[in-house]
């Protein structure tokens, strides 16, 4: 009975976990440099930007929705934050205003999308396709198409700094994932996310304020996209209006490879983490093996397909 329970608990991430370990072993065997602290920290840094967004996207996809606006929000929140850094406020206050406003933009965008979805009953795909276009356009309008340069000293620390050799974005990513995991598995909000994704009408009739749950997942997704946007701007030490193009696809790939069902109701943050790492390790490993970058794209695509296929087969067996 207890072993039955353990398998039930593990089965969600089991397949993808095995795939990840295999991949890891394969690259460690093929490249001497792969399994060094330097390289692994580097992989985590490269993965962090999309992984943080993927944590938020997991909540959205669990409700059966999708958020296509995240890539554009990366750019727009980055632009707004970097612009605010140049208003001449004292550094501490300036940083705080820039970061808080950047995050607020993401949250507000999510709230707006959630409102349109729940109030006017428009498909999430359509609403966030629209906000995606709106924010991308806004980023170019705001900057007239030019990057925001010459940022104050110290801002670069967020994206390029290290604490005890660990990159700051990596630390923020890990904290984001821990917080998301706890939120999803231990709080009422998390439980309601699964319920809404599993059967929204039954959830409503069980007394769940489903509209509120939906709006909150888009707020979370937007805010985390904005957080990533700020980190990316810091790493590039500039606000770029064309930052984060097509990130939504990498993010959705990480979530789906991690075993979260696009139809909602099933999936996990742990799965998403492994999914994001699997893709990042794959890219890194192929780079180390000097695989041509065009060929890399093909391989990444095939791996995404294989991962999801394996997951489907496993589900069918059950």
């Amino acid at each position: 009975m207890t072993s039955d329970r353990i398998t039930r608990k593990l089965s969600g991430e089991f397949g993808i976990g095995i795939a990840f370990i295999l991949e890891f072993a394969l690259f460690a065997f093929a490249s001497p440099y792969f399994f060094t602290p330097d390289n692994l920290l580097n992989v985590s840094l490269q993965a962090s930007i999309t992984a943080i967004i993927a944590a938020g996207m997991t909540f959205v996809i669990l409700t059966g929705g999708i958020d296509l606006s995240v890539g554009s929000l990366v750019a727009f929140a980055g632009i707004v934050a970097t612009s605010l850094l140049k208003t001449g406020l004292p550094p501490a206050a300036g940083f705080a205003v820039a970061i808080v406003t950047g995050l607020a933009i993401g949250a507000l965008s999510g709230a707006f999308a959630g409102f349109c979805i729940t109030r006017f009953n428009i498909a999430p795909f359509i609403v966030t396709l629209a906000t995606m276009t709106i924010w991308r356009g806004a980023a170019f309008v705001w900057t007239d198409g030019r990057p925001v340069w010459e940022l104050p000293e110290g801002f670069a620390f967020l994206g390029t700094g290290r604490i005890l050799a660990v990159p700051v974005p990596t630390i923020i990513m890990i904290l984001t994932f821990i917080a998301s995991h706890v939120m999803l598995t231990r709080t009422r909000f998390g439980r309601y996310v699964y319920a809404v994704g599993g059967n929204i009408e039954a959830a409503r009739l069980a007394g769940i304020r489903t509209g509120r749950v939906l709006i909150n997942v888009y707020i979370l997704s937007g805010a985390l996209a904005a957080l990533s946007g700020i980190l990316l701007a810091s790493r590039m030490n500039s606000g770029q209006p064309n930052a984060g193009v097509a990130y939504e696809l990498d993010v959705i790939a990480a979530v789906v490879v991690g075993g979260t069902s696009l139809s909602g109701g099933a999936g996990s943050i742990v799965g998403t983490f492994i999914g994001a790492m699997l893709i990042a390790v794959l890219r890194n490993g192929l780079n180390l093996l000097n695989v041509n970058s065009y060929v890399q794209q093909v391989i990444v695509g095939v791996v995404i397909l294989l991962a999801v296929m394996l997951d489907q087969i496993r589900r069918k067996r059950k």
Partner: protein
Amino acid sequence: MEPLLAMQGIIKRYPGVLALSGVDFTLQAGEVNCLVGENGAGKSTLIKVLSGAIVRDAGSIRIEGNEAHLDSPADAQRLGIGVIYQDFKLVPALTVAENILLGTEPVVGRSPFIDRKGMDEKASAALGLLGEEIDTRSPVGHLSVAKQQMVEIAKALSRNVRILAMDEPTAPLTEWETANLFKVIRSLKDRGVGIIYISHRLEEIFEVGDRVTVLRDGAFVHACGINEIDRRGLIRKMVGRELENEYPRAVLARGTEILRIENLSSDRVSNVNLTLYRGEVLGLAGLVGAGRSELARLVFGADRRTGGRIFLDGKEIAPESPHEAIREGIGLLTEDRNRYGLIMQMSIRENISLSSLRAMLTGPFIDRRKEETAARQLSDDLRIKAPDTGVIVENLSGGNRQKVVLARWLNTKARVLIFDEPTAGIDVGVKYEIYTLINRLAREGIGVIVISSDLPELLGICHRVAVMCEGELTGIVEGTEATQETVMTYAHKNRR
């Protein structure tokens, strides 16, 4: 003469479960053989084997004496086997004709183009055999459930079906539609079609059946002509023991008022006045579509109210959402537990606690121990059959699923509980448990309203029966004077 269908020693194993342990079943041409048994008895599994949806582990299937090769749905179709499932396999956006001829569309000459006229003619012909006139060009999604069912039967007929299995076909039908379905079944019999009929409504079995086959726990128990057994005997075969009384009615003293509704209205309900007292079980009767579920949903805040007032324990409440209604202490066990009640991918525990998570918190976090304790206690109390509360509800039988929803509402500590068709599709044994529970709740002072289309059930367990017709409350019958006739008179009051 060889029987039309002879299934012998059918065995089907699932991991850890023997779903069918050597079941025999025979069907003659032109007869209705009713397949009965409690939930989990193996009826659906047997039908799935026959339809090729699952492959048997052992056993033989003969059709007119010939060993049938039956490993896939395509085999079943080739052999003339058709199944009408509860949830129809129709494409809502396609027209009636397109659905009936799906996959067998006639074409113009040898071209790739569909012969629309030929299609309409063929579809009309198939419907004509049923005595149905349905516009073959209207989308199936626009039809009533009863008409969709007819389209499904016509679809089977157009494929020259000889063996037709029907799984709870009358569940979504009104009385009149049921009578029509029975007429169609009789005409199919005359054409030599053998019909396997599954239903939990025993009256129907005695009305439409020629023979009856009883399964229990995956095993064959009994088969005989319908005239050789009575209702009581049939229940005994199904349950495996004697049920002393099908409907237990508690003797209770009517207490104080707990719920009062005044002139409650919506677009489907008009001006309903009703008072519910502590210690009674109030029935809500009426034909399908009379507005009973809609009235319940209004009180529960699930639908928009256009007028009227609701008083709970003398205090006016105005729930605008189920969330608010639950906070006031009103619970609604919705009809169709799979669609409106349960989150299928969630565990028993998570489904039970879903409406009462606030009480399960320690700080901002759900306290797993509190949650598990409550779920364990309720699932023991209601005798939910599962190894532990972590089992996903999708893997439970209908009766156990209903108990999970019941447990959820018991956990909310509601003051008024409305049960909408609580025993639909549930076997006799579990029905009895649910009746007993309803009585217990009434005794504990909870206001109980039961909506049911099963009139003998309502008369059997309720102290008063309120009757609705076309959105209006047309009468209230006291238990002592309640008969099927008086209730049906009120249920038809507004009809010409």
